[in-house]
């Protein structure tokens, strides 16, 4: 076996310390200045026609309510 052979030896993974100490950062761990959180609200009814969206209750409590039609996406409101 040459000095450079990896066969038959155990190497410690390069991500071992990060993941075993909890230092590894996943998407949910990242906080950025001014970061907003978004939530997708789906219809509770399968294959129903979405006729209208009343976002009045959310006003003042959220930064924005984005419905499909507001973004120029076809097929959300008929």
């Amino acid at each position, binding site marked *: 076996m040459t000095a450079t052979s990896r066969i038959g030896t155990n190497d*410690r*993974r390069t991500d*071992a*310390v*990060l993941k*075993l*100490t*909890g230092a590894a950062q*996943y998407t949910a761990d990242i906080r950025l200045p001014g970061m907003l959180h978004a939530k997708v609200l789906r219809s509770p009814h399968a294959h129903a026609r979405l006729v209208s969206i009343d976002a009045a209750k959310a006003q003042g409590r959220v930064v924005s309510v984005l419905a499909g039609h507001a973004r120029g996406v076809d097929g959300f409101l008929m």
Partner: protein
Amino acid sequence: MTTESTDKAAADGRITIGFAVDGRPRTERIAPNTVLLDLLRDRYGMTGVKASCERGVCGACTTLIDGTPSASCSVFAFSVDGRAVETVAGQTTDGELGPVQQAFAECGGFQCGYCTPGMIMLTTALLREHPDPDEETIRSWISSNVCRCTGYRMIIESVHRAAELIRAAEPARTGEDAR
């Protein structure tokens, strides 16, 4: 605050608690509905405590409360008043991996790593109760924690290895009367 109250709840409904995190004393004013996971992650920035299902079924957020493995997402922060909380952050000493972490490193007992801090805390508690656990005991204990990479075989090997490492270190720690 103008009046002194014997009650811990202040006029604004907040509660003052004192507890220890990885041996460090903390005093916090919290809302009654604050859960331990959010306190650790959002206020202390301890993102090593992982948030996943947030309903007490996956074990990613496992911390030890007075030594008992607990899903910190499903524990009200007020309930740890006067208690000791242990997290993965307390596993290292001066940057050196602890024996459980060392075992997981050696055995490759992690893949994506998201369940790993919880698995490490669970293993820590398991080995305090069962220093030389059989496979059935290990399987039974880790059934509380989900590894979505499904790398359970190596996790079980890691627990066995951690038990060996801790036992091997024991005589050195307790001096000459090891036997």
